[in-house]
């Protein structure tokens, strides 16, 4: 367990990130149309999310498309502002960060993007892209070449001179994703959000990027969020997993426990649905009804209630709160 060694044992482990009752609502359509329909259509992309990340922790944010995981990641990096609630980075509220404070945060919180072909300006050479964070952080020109070379080494892109003058379209997906990672790590951040960083890559290349992610996270003691819809990938890189459904957290706990013994009915379905590369695998029907979550029109009470085989009266009335079971938090009326 190399990651455990990196963790400093302090008397008061102050969280790197604290998310406090975050909500993000999007108004759909124009206000006039809403007035004519006599009610405004609001999509609650995130609806009351709470969690904290301790230093050196890697957490998987798991869920289907539309569950709010990407919006959550964007808000953590101040690319989007929450409608309600607070996000604290080492105790400082992101909402109040402006000017120098924001610039300082930008140097310490970074993102690894889903599509490496889109994450770099196609008109910039790799050297220009790598230079951008350095010049923004006022690193002296003389020092930059050295920093770039070190970052390229870190992601196992040796002989940088070979790549630096190339444009993104002249490189393969795997190489580009390494460049994107090098750019994210060049200012030595403490917190990294990785948004499905391998979903656009070929299978044979994925493993290399995942291994690299684990390696740099351990070596640099990063606090990391790994956003994905694939539990197998999350399990490979994160010791803790937060499962989201329709803008809410349904389960939060150690990844191994979630994989071996999922508690929330939704998590059960997710675990059962993940295909494995063995010919012999369970073809048992999923413990959840077919159907698509509709973020515009979620059911009252528990949002899974219309698809959940265990739903009872209370589920329609009351939103389930977090129930602590061992190291886990489960949001389900079956457990409280």
């Amino acid at each position, binding site marked *: 367990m190399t990651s455990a060694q990196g963790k400093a044992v302090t008397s008061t482990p102050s969280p790197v990130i604290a998310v406090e009752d975050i909500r993000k609502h999007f108004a759909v359509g124009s206000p006039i149309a809403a007035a004519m329909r006599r009610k405004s259509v609001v999509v609650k992309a995130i609806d009351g999310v709470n969690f904290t990340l301790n230093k050196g922790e890697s957490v998987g944010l798991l869920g289907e498309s539309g569950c709010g995981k990407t919006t959550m990641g*964007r808000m953590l*990096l101040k*690319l989007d502002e929450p409608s309600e609630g607070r996000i604290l980075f080492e105790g400082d509220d992101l909402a109040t960060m402006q000017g120098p404070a924001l*610039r300082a945060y*930008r*140097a310490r*919180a*970074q*993102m690894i*993007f*889903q*599509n490496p072909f*889109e*994450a*770099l*300006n*196609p*008109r910039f050479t790799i*050297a220009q892209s790598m230079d*951008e*964070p350095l010049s*923004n*952080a006022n690193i002296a020109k003389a020092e930059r*070449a*050295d920093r*770039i*070379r070190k970052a390229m080494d870190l992601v196992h892109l040796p*002989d*940088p*001179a070979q790549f*630096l*003058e190339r444009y993104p379209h002249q490189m393969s997906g795997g190489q580009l994703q390494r460049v*994107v990672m090098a*750019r*994210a790590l060049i200012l030595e951040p403490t917190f990294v959000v990785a948004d499905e960083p391998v979903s656009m890559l070929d299978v044979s290349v994925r493993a290399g990027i995942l291994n690299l992610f684990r390696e740099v996270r351990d070596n640099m003691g990063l606090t990391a969020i790994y956003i994905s819809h694939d539990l197998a990938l999350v399990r490979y890189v994160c010791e803790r997993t937060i499962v989201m459904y329709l803008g809410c957290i349904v389960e939060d706990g150690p990844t191994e426990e979630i994989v071996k013994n999922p508690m929330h009915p939704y998590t059960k379905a997710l675990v059962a649905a993940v295909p494995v590369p063995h010919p012999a695998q369970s073809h048992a029907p999923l413990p959840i009804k077919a159907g698509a979550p509709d973020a515009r029109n979620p059911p009252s009470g528990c949002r899974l209630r219309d698809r959940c085989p265990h739903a009872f009266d209370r589920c329609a009335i009351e939103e389930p709160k977090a129930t602590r079971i061992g190291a886990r938090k489960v949001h389900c009326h079956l457990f409280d």
Partner: protein
Amino acid sequence: MPELTTARKPHALHWLTRRFARLQIPLDDPFAVTGLIIYAVFILVAIFANQLATHDPLEILYSETYELSSNLRPGEDGFILGTTSLGRDIYSQLIYGSRSALLIGITAAFMVAVIGTIVGLLSGYFGGWIDIVLMRAADIAFGIPFLPFVIVLSAFLEPSIWNVVFAMALILWRDTGRVIRSQVLTLRTRTYIDAARIAGSSDMKIVFSHIAPNILPLSFLYGSIAIGWAILTEAAISFLGFGDPETISWGYMLQDAYASQALSTGGYYWFVPPGICIILVVVAGFFISRGYEEILFPKLKD
């Protein structure tokens, strides 16, 4: 260990070629190249007008016998294109006319491209009340009838080609602004813009280093369209008699020919050459814009 900076070409030449490449001058399209050649010829003529012209275009000329050299046909007494009814040299007027035409065309194009680009960038990138204010201003500009506005404003400010250009720029930025705004709206959602924000780039840096280079060809497209419009408008205004009487332009020549009844007396040598020049410059502008369109919207070919 390989030194990083050695891989870069440090010369200013490299910088220049890179900037030049960004303008994406359409050299593949034969029409665009034709347009560029026509422009090149007119620009050379305008620059060397003093050398090329045989007379002062506004000077009233007399023959050696002190007779007014009026209404001479091309070639007579050595006047290449003849003279006007007031005894002015048409050829020299045509040469000097290219100066004002290009000045008008290029300044108007420049102003339209600059104003439209800035409006589009600000409006598209920042959104919010900036967007509302600028786009409502564009709506108003769309509502103003173009020619009457230019005539009234330039007459009000005193007739000079600069006021004509100014009045045109006040209206013509609207198309450029709108189109660039919509382009910026799509560019703004690209992942690399988010990546730049996370890398700590300021809004201004993002606008100028990541967004602006992508819309430069679009600015040039609208600029090259504006050249034609500006020259045509100036010609129309001069022809209607609201132009600057002190400056020779092709529109002024047409108006002069018309007022002197050259059309009924068969003075084709007087009104045909400026007409051809106007057509050539305007068409050249559209040819170049066509080339930019092919760069911007390659699907138009099929």
